[in-house]
């Protein structure tokens, strides 16, 4: 019965620690097995009550598993997914720039043409 008590307890701890990395879980299970073996060897007699007391002092499997999870090192800062590249934007939007250019440049162009035609007419008059 005592062996069953111990095996059931260890199985419950192993199950509660199922989410741990295997190495951490195996290390913990080995530590607990050793603890139970050493503590039992110190008992004046191997009674079920005394062994149950050893397991009770070890504590609830869920509590041990919670502590084991907290002890697994994790990044202090979760990695932030890389930002998508920002689309390059011009200081002014293209359509607006085009409209401004047209409004300014077309009269200037017409004025320049008029000047050129005028000069040509003046200097080529016979």
């Amino acid at each position, binding site marked *: 019965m005592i062996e069953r008590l111990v095996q059931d307890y260890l199985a419950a701890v192993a199950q509660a620690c199922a989410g741990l990395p295997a190495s951490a879980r195996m290390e913990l299970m080995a530590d607990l097995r050793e*603890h139970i073996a*050493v503590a039992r060897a110190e008992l004046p007699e191997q009674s079920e009550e005394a062994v149950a007391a050893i397991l009770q002092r070890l*504590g609830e499997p869920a509590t*041990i598993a919670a502590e084991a999870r907290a002890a697994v090192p994790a990044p202090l800062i979760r990695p932030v997914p890389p930002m998508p590249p920002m689309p390059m934007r011009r200081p002014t939007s293209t359509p607006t720039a085009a409209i401004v250019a047209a409004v300014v440049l077309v009269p200037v162009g017409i004025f320049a043409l008029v000047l050129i035609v005028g000069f040509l007419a003046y200097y080529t008059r016979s």
Partner: protein
Amino acid sequence: MHYGHCGYLVTQGTLYGMEVGPALTTALRRGTLEFCVLALLEDEERYGVELVGRLAAKPALTTTEGTLYPLLSRMRRAGWVTTTWQESPTGPPRRYYGLTAGGKAALDTFRTEWVAFRDAVDHIVGTERS
């Protein structure tokens, strides 16, 4: 959840949403229990059952013996304690824990930090010992 939720909230630096009692003792324990282990090993090596037994015997630390083994693993990985196996006349070989130079340095640093921290909190919270 990835962590036990008390541990998660501790790393977030908040105890919101939890009963103050259990979450508080967990938070206080997280920062200090390993230094209690180091202090217990300062003068002599101790084997596992003895070490966890002494700590768990203090009700205010609210820890069961089993929860100390993950802590001891972490301290081993951090290089603060080493372990050696020693034969025992009365039973199976026992793993003895001992302090490293790094562990001793960490303990000395903690002593300074803890006194300053404890005194500041006592003063602000009004629990200074007269």
